């Protein structure tokens, strides 16, 4: 198969893409920008709310109990003032002439019965009634609040976990287009907003249920006076709606200005070194001042409205009190209502305004959570997935590790074809280097092998099994991938090697670290394998990070190794350590390496040259050099340093002898056994000549 690339197939594939790419590639173009859009829906989306209820299902008993309790609590809390007005004022203190004419909801009867039954002082009975009501209300209220919180929290926990699960399984193509930040806020803030929605919904039910009771009671007392009192409701409503309308824009500007302010500061802090080196401190302070001033300006604007609204609202009740006093006073004189009723009216006024004012706030929460809900469901409904086989193939205990690519065509969604009719095969245990210019499709090949993207059946085979017939998770356990952008997590070194994989014991992790040369630097760290790493491994050098990534893959012991060699240059000493680690890593493993270094290429059995998505050359390093084709040119360009060096130094054999001599000179300790395993001691690269043989290496 090594000579699979015939000029003919190349020519064919050149003609092919336009007509076949749609069929070849399962992924279609998706509108990822939808994910980035600012969702500011103002419409009530009931279907979404209903859908949310599905997550509440397991906890419906708790939530229904809570709803029933809140109704009961509201009803009881309304009855309490009735005891005060009808019993205490109208019956005990200022007895009315014909009590039966006035509505009392059986409270007076209960009082009369208790009075006859206990023969206590009338006020004691009124007290007993109030205390009893209070106790019952309190207990029910506690039960209500706790059941609500528990139900709502669990509902949202489940939603959050489901959301996380769904995002965790989104394929690479998804994360190619969607920023982590956007996804993040869905899991954190948006779910939190929904929680606020639930609690504030129930809280407002807690305001509204009594509101309905209150209005009903007032109407049974006196129709006209109720209307007078209720006049403030439209006023409050108009004020609230107007205020919210005016403030929406101002609040938006405040939010914008705050986020600009924060972004500016964050970026300034991240680049503080550059700021100081460029002498930009004063300039940045004045830039920041401008943003700060804008923020202050918007805040001031908001204050003007807020203060007026606030004071209007608190005065509303006083206005209504005046009205009720005016008309109600006359009604009391004419004995249309009792004194206790007038008192009750005034007591109830507050309860009429509060829910209206709260409503404005509630709608705010509602709309915000609407948008949050939509974002969450958008993520949940995003059906982008790696295609899983219906009848997955069962893999043997241990794969041999043969890999074959057969006429592979591939294009990322919405872009040109990246790989064109790629065919090659690798024997078990063979090491293949892939070289090619940027954009030649090297990374795509290894991404496809790990099934990060979907592609057609019968194009890639592992041990003669079509990878599309293997469950992605099974496949990925067998193929160890080290990409250039491997991630170091915060946590201990051990955690980073084991990656919460229960099969990787501490011993195994240490074994792996030893094999890839990581053990030495890890041991030298203050807490060894328990050393806490910062996210992205900021407290490790680049080389150390690389070794850690190697150890991680080795610990998982995959049959096939896929590696994208780091491009950035590291100092020569570290580079050699990494080279050796790489060597150990690939022993007995089928390996595909995207190579950027000549040493790595020479380490491999064969070299595959990719050019513009096509396999152009395949063979050993020497063969390809002789061929004087693309590889030869690449070699000349990319490894110019070595080319010039060999010109300078001449005969490689002579050089070898020369180098041996020099090494011995540099390391007098090692004279007896020039190239022995322990000839250099722990002194590292230049320790001998530096005169300090005790320094730890490479940390």
């Amino acid at each position, binding site marked *: 198969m090594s000579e699979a690339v015939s000029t003919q197939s190349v020519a064919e594939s050149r003609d092919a893409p336009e007509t076949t790419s749609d069929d070849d590639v399962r992924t279609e173009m998706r509108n990822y920008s939808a994910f980035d859009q600012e969702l500011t829906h103002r419409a009530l989306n009931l279907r979404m709310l209903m859908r949310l209820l599905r997550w509440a299902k397991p906890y419906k008993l708790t939530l229904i109990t809570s709803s029933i309790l809140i109704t009961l609590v509201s009803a009881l809390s309304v009855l309490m003032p009735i005891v005060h007005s009808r019993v205490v004022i109208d019956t005990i*203190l200022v007895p009315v002439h014909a009590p039966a004419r006035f509505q009392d909801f059986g409270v007076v009867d209960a009082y009369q019965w208790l009075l006859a039954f206990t023969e206590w002082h009338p*006020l004691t009975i009124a*007290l007993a009634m*109030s205390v009893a009501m*209070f106790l019952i209300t309190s207990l029910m*209220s*506690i039960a209500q*609040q706790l059941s609500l*919180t528990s139900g709502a*929290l669990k509902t949202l926990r489940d939603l959050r*976990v489901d959301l*996380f699960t769904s*995002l965790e399984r989104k394929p*690479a193509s998804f994360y190619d287009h969607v920023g*982590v930040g956007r996804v993040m806020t869905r899991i*954190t803030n948006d779910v*939190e907003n929904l929680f606020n929605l639930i609690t504030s919904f129930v809280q407002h039910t807690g305001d509204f249920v009594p509101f309905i009771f209150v209005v009903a009671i007032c109407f049974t007392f006196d129709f006209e006076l109720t209307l007078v009192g209720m006049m403030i409701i439209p006023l409050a409503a108009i004020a609230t709606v107007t205020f919210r309308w005016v403030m929406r824009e101002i609040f938006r500007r405040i939010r914008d200005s705050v986020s600009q302010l924060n972004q500016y500061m*964050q970026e300034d*802090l*991240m680049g*503080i*070194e550059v*700021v*100081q080196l*460029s*002498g930009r401190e004063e300039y*940045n*302070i004045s830039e*920041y001042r401008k943003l700060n001033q804008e*923020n202050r300006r918007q805040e001031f604007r908001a*204050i003007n409205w807020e203060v007026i609204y606030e004071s209007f609202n608190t*005065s509303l009740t*006083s206005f209504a009190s*005046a009205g009720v006093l005016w008309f109600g*006073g*006359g009604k*009391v004189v004419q004995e249309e209502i009792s004194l206790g009723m007038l008192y009750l009216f005034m007591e109830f006024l507050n309860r009429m305004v509060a829910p209206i004012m709260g409503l404005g706030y509630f709608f705010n929460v509602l709309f915000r959570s609407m948008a949050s809900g939509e974002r969450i469901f958008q993520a949940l409904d995003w059906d982008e997935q790696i295609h899983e086989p219906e009848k997955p193939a069962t893999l043997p205990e241990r794969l041999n590790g043969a890999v074959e690519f057969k006429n592979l065509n591939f294009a990322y969604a919405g872009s040109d074809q990246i790989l064109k009719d790629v065919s090659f095969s690798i024997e078990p245990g063979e090491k293949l280097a892939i070289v090619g210019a940027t954009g030649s499709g090297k990374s795509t090949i290894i991404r496809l092998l790990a099934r*990060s993207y979907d592609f057609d059946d019968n194009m890639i085979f592992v041990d003669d099994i079509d990878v599309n017939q293997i469950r992605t998770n099974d496949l*990925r356990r067998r193929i160890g991938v080290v990409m250039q952008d491997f*991630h170091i997590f915060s946590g201990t070194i051990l955690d980073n090697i084991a*990656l919460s994989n229960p099969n990787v014991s501490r011993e195994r992790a240490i074994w792996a670290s030893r094999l890839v*040369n990581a053990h030495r630097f890890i041991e030298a760290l203050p807490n060894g394998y328990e050393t806490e790493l910062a996210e992205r491994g900021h407290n490790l050098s680049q*080389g150390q990070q690389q070794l850690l990534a190697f150890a991680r*893959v080795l610990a998982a012991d995959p049959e096939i190794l896929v590696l994208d060699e780091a491009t*950035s*240059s590291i100092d020569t000493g570290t580079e050699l*350590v990494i080279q*050796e680690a790489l060597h150990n890593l690939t022993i007995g493993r089928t390996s595909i390496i995207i190579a950027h270094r000549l040493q790595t290429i020479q380490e491999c059995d064969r070299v595959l040259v990719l050019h513009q998505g096509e396999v152009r050359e395949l063979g050993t390093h020497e063969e390809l050099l002789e061929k004087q084709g693309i590889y030869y040119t690449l070699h000349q360009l990319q490894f*110019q*340093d070595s080319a010039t060096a060999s010109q300078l130094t001449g005969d490689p054999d002579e050089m*070898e002898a020369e*180098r041996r001599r020099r090494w011995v000179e*540099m390391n007098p300790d090692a004279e007896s056994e020039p*190239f*022995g395993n*322990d*000839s250099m*001691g722990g002194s*590292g690269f230049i320790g001998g*000549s530096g005169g300090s043989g005790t320094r730890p290496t490479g940390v």
Partner: protein
Amino acid sequence: MRSGGFGGGGGYSSGRWGGGVSSRINRERSSYKHLGHLAKLFPYILKYKWILIICIAAILCHRGLMAYMPQFMKVAFNDLANPNVEAETYKQAIGLLVTTIVSIIVYVPARRALRRLSISITYDLRQRFFSHVQYQGPSFFNKFGTGDLMSRAVNDINMVRMAVSFGWVNLMVFVFTVIASISFMLSMSPKLTLAVVIPLPLVGLVGFLMARGVYPYYRERQEALADVTSFTQENLNGIRTIQAMAQEENEIERFKDSSTSYIKKFYRATRYQTFMNTYISALTMIAPMIILVYGGMLVMDGEIGIGDFTAFSAYLTMLVGQVSSIGFSLAMFVAAAAGTARIFEVLESDPEVTDDAETAVPQNIEGSLEFRELTYRYPETTIDTLSGVNIKLEAGKTVALLGRIGSGKSTVLKAAVRMIDTPRNHVFLDGHDICDYSVKQLRETITLVPQHAFLFSASVKENITYDNPKRDESEVMHAANSAGLEEALQDLAQGLDTVVGERGITLSGGQKQRATLARGLIRESEILLLDDCFSSVDTRTEELIIDGLQTMRAGKSTILISHRVSTARHADYIYVLDAGSIIEAGTHDELLEKDGYYANLEKVQSNQEQTAQEKEKLLEQLNPTSDSNDVQVASSTT
């Protein structure tokens, strides 16, 4: 995040700066002993003392009017209950209306001024915070990470603002309301007043104690949320790695645990708060019950009228509302005090590098730089990073520094621009101690291009002209071309105006490095320090850039750090550093002659075409892996 007095419009925006988890955990348990920190805010508040005094007077007046309102009800009810008097409730109604309108007129401007004041204080604090941070040195930024500083600037300043905006106004309102209500109550019935007021301090005390108790619950809840947030963030950042290693299921389990732990903490906090509210409302119920029984008896005895009875209830409602909210105000103060402490922890740390008393230094710099016996140890470390380093850069020359990672090369360069606390009498610019120059002048004369390529979220042009945004386009193009950025710019849709960085297009590592190089080159300063600025640039481009540099920097001094001999050999003089000391120095040819580190490095780097066997041997020498090496080290030291 807004939270107005009308019910608040904002949620806690935690998670935005969720990075500072550990700082949250380390945050001292808030308690009342922190309240003293609030005194630090006085200078900020006193700036506005006149507004403050007028406002306090207005608020006092407003509370008086509010407290007078139940008096109208008292008269109306007394008249209504008294068969001998013809009640004219419209009069009281009008009185109520007028009082309300007057109170609005008094209240609105005063409240507005107070709220403006709190915004101004926030503004001042924020401005000072930002300004202060700009001049801090590296050990400050080691101590306070970006996330931590952001959390202080955002969350803590917000807390202070809440306290300044609402907290102490609430306190004032509390005091005035109590005084006014109690005086009116006393005027109606001293006996009943006494009976009613006695249980109130109890309410306040319990509220106070319990509000203090709620804080740990609340904080635990926030910490758990921060855990969920940071877990999620990290997981998503590393999603490719997780998927490649097929670890999704384990991660989902961990997320489940983390979310469950969060809702548990949340539930606990709610439970505490629910019970607390119940206790407090039970205690507050005592007073109305006293009015009901004792007040009722007084009415029956004819000592007070039914109007007084109802007015008492109204005053009580006022008092109870205040007393129960005082716990909340105090909690706010506690939070603000902790926030203040955290803000001032930053504001009170002095910059490490300051301009010393002026010594006469030349204004026209020729560009010679000398390090004499420079020894430096980073704070809180045990090993000298530099020991006795001597480097001499003559004006107009180029010097290269080589050495392994961690050998102290970057520290040398940092010392020259005082990015570390450079000791006196060790580094000299044109023969004068660099500590005698102002930091500003020093950093204008010496440009350091740091190793870590950082670009701001701004256009390429703004990034390159970062030191002076007024530079014209031809200068920018010249610098960009010299840095080898020409081709990269052609690829960008909007050329120089393309926005790059975190919130723009991500450039490749090499492009970033070249852009930062251009940022340094454009300044054309007398001395240029390049800290390994070609590591992500391929060799050919590097050659081109260096060729360009040689013409552009002709007659000016340059120090460059490199790992490549091919780069270093262009320098007039080369120093090799190891473990903080110079181990070799000389010109390229001299060093090759010497057969030392440099010569070996040249061999290794230039000869990559070795046989596998050869390489292995080389490797063994360079990086011994077997444990027997450690033994050997031990024996060689003894």
